[in-house]
């Protein structure tokens, strides 16, 4: 049933975008009419006009391409992100330090300073403290009586500036692979939120979906989200029992994989742990275990290997001993359980390109068969066979590329800005944003399928013999 709804929704989006395709054809046709006064692009204009002659066939080919490209872009966005986080880099790559023998990893906070000191002493961190990020995890419920999907909140306890910082003209982030994942508006809002967190340690930044749950709504508009800045709530913790924290929303995280996450200032939790000891006369049970992960960024492999030797040195870090691995390796281990699903998605994408190619092939065969006489006339007028091949390829590729571009563009806008990401929970990634690269994946997939699908029919058309066609007609 869900699949049916998705299919109907995809078809609806394709149908709604169809006028866009024909408007494009009309605008391009009108533009070429003007351009043709200066340069001879009449054949290209003929291609555009030909696409307007059989509206049903052109529409069907457009819709089929649109839907397939949409699905391919969605799947490739997920698969390529998963690939990206598992790819071992040669330069500028991340590593994770965890407790060697225990899951979940729980390390004393003093390790943070010791690790930084040890690595900086050897000049292994190119950007100093900017290359280190610590994570603690604080989870709880806003309803002390019960834990429901709506009432649960989860925070990364960290230094806020590690989400995003501006150094000169450049943005730097340890949270994402590249600051390109954020739009200009996102970055501006994140930086404003971080500034507020630095002033107000109780301040938290929170993803739009989680925020909506907290106020009992299924979804919030951008304006409603902004209006909730200043909203206060109390969290009854699951893991830090007895440390229930008052929080104030000071910023909104972007959608996508941060849609349900939250970021809390590290100093706030540490202060609360100290307060707990003062109040109860004994330290909290997690006081020496509040550092869960340390992320590091290295400029090259040599620095990483050197750092690994230091971190793995049990005489230096013995209680508890530590393990360091590249983030790609760490994520890959975690994603092992999903390997079959990811492989299947990869193959389904390829399969869809093949189906799309076959659809183009059938469509162009219909076009060629219906216009044999016309091709013969063009040959009589002196058009070379290659001009006919180019004309047919042009018609096919134009549908493929324009449909692919519109499909990828709409997917990018609708998923990223409308839905806040593609909901497809895999491991610790609840949803995925469509990357900017999808804006060329769509036209490339559409263009490639249309080209491959129309090569043989176009070749058949070039072999049309005018004498035979007219002998039959006469």
């Amino acid at each position, binding site marked *: 049933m869900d699949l049916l709804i998705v299919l109907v929704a995809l078809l609806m989006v394709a149908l709604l975008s169809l006028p866009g395709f024909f408007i494009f054809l009309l605008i391009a046709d009108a533009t070429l009419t003007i351009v043709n006064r200066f340069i001879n692009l*009449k054949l290209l204009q003929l291609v555009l006009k030909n696409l307007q002659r059989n509206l049903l066939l052109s529409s069907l080919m457009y819709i089929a391409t649109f839907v397939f490209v949409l699905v391919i872009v969605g799947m490739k966005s997920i698969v390529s992100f998963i690939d990206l986080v598992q790819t071992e880099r040669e330069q500028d790559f991340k590593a994770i330090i965890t407790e060697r023998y225990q899951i979940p990893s729980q390390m004393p906070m003093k390790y943070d300073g010791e690790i930084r000191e040890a690595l900086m002493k050897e000049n292994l961190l190119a950007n100093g403290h900017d290359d280190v990020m610590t994570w603690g995890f604080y989870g709880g419920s806003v309803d002390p009586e019960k834990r429901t999907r709506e009432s649960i909140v989860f925070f990364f306890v960290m230094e806020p500036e590690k989400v995003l910082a501006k150094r000169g003209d450049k943005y730097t982030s340890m949270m994402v692979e590249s600051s390109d994942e954020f739009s200009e508006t996102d970055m501006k809002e994140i930086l404003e939120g971080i500034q507020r967190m630095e002033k107000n340690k109780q301040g938290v930044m929170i993803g739009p979906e989680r925020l909506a749950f907290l106020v009992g709504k299924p979804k919030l508009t951008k304006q409603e989200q902004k209006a909730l800045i200043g909203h206060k709530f109390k969290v009854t913790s699951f893991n830090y029992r007895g440390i229930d924290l008052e929080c104030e929303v000071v910023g909104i995280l972007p959608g996508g994989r941060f849609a349900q996450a939250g970021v809390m200032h590290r100093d706030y939790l540490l202060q609360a742990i100290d307060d707990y000891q003062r109040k109860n006369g004994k330290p909290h049970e997690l006081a020496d275990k509040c550092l869960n992960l340390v992320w590091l960024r290295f400029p090259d492999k040599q620095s990483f290997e050197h750092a690994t030797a230091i971190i793995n040195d049990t005489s230096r870090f013995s209680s508890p001993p530590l393990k360091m691995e590249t983030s790609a390796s760490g994520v890959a281990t975690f994603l092992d359980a999903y390997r079959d699903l990811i492989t299947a998605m990869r193959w389904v994408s390829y399969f869809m390109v093949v189906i799309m190619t076959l659809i183009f092939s059938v469509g162009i065969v219909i076009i060629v068969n219906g216009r044999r006489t016309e091709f013969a006339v063009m040959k009589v007028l002196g058009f070379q066979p290659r001009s006919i091949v180019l004309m047919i390829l042009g018609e096919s590729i134009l549908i493929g590329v324009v449909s692919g571009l519109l499909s990828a563009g709409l997917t990018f806008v609708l998923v990223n800005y409308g839905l806040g990401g593609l909901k497809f929970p895999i491991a610790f990634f609840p949803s995925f944003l469509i990357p900017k690269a999808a804006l060329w994946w769509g036209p490339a997939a559409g263009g490639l399928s249309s080209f491959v699908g129309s090569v043989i029919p176009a070749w058949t058309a070039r072999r049309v013999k005018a004498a035979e066609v*007219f002998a039959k007609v006469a």
Partner: protein
Amino acid sequence: MGSPIVRVRNVCKSFQRGSETIEVLDHLSLDVEKGEFLALMGPSGSGKTTLLNLIAGLDQPTSGDIAVGDQLISQMTESQLARWRTRNVGFIFQFYHLLPVLTAYENVELPLLLLPMSSAERRKQVTNALDLVNLSDRMSHRPGQLSGGQQQRVGIARAIVTDPTLLVADEPTGDLDSKSANEILELLTILKNHLNKTIIMVTHDPHAAERAERLLHLEKGKLVGDTSNGQAIPVVSPVAASSTAFRG
């Protein structure tokens, strides 16, 4: 008589249908003078359209030679023929065969796109051709908005727009009522008389054939009659033809 513009010598054309070989033209020879209006008649299957296609460079003979002007077209490759047709032949079809997505102006302009011409030159040629067929007021109409006679006139404008040496017409009045047919024939006569075009027309219609100054009869792939202005002239003999073939 001047030197012929079309010289057909000893031409045979056969088609293969399964294991059967069908002889369509059988050692046919023919001369057509420059500025001549020639009609080809004969029963169905006599080889009229095949001969027309060979002269227009749409097909190649199985044997024999065809020359138009000083070009031996029977030995040209397909792409050489395509280039040659653009400049030298205008083709008028029975069913007009205009491109439905293009206006009358654009249909006439189509062959000119293959020639190195500026936009202004193309515009001038197209306007002249449409003026000549008296369709200046229908330039922006698409074929679907024109009558059969008007479509055929656009077809004629398209055929003459490149100022070709030779006009070939395959039953140009076959799909028209008698009034429109007369208009088309009148137009062809004007093209012959005023522009000195050489016209070869296949027709089944004796009234259309009457407009031509020379009438050829084909039967079973052979030339069986050749009358010029009502007077019979001897059919070119294959032997004599081959001995004098392409001497000048």
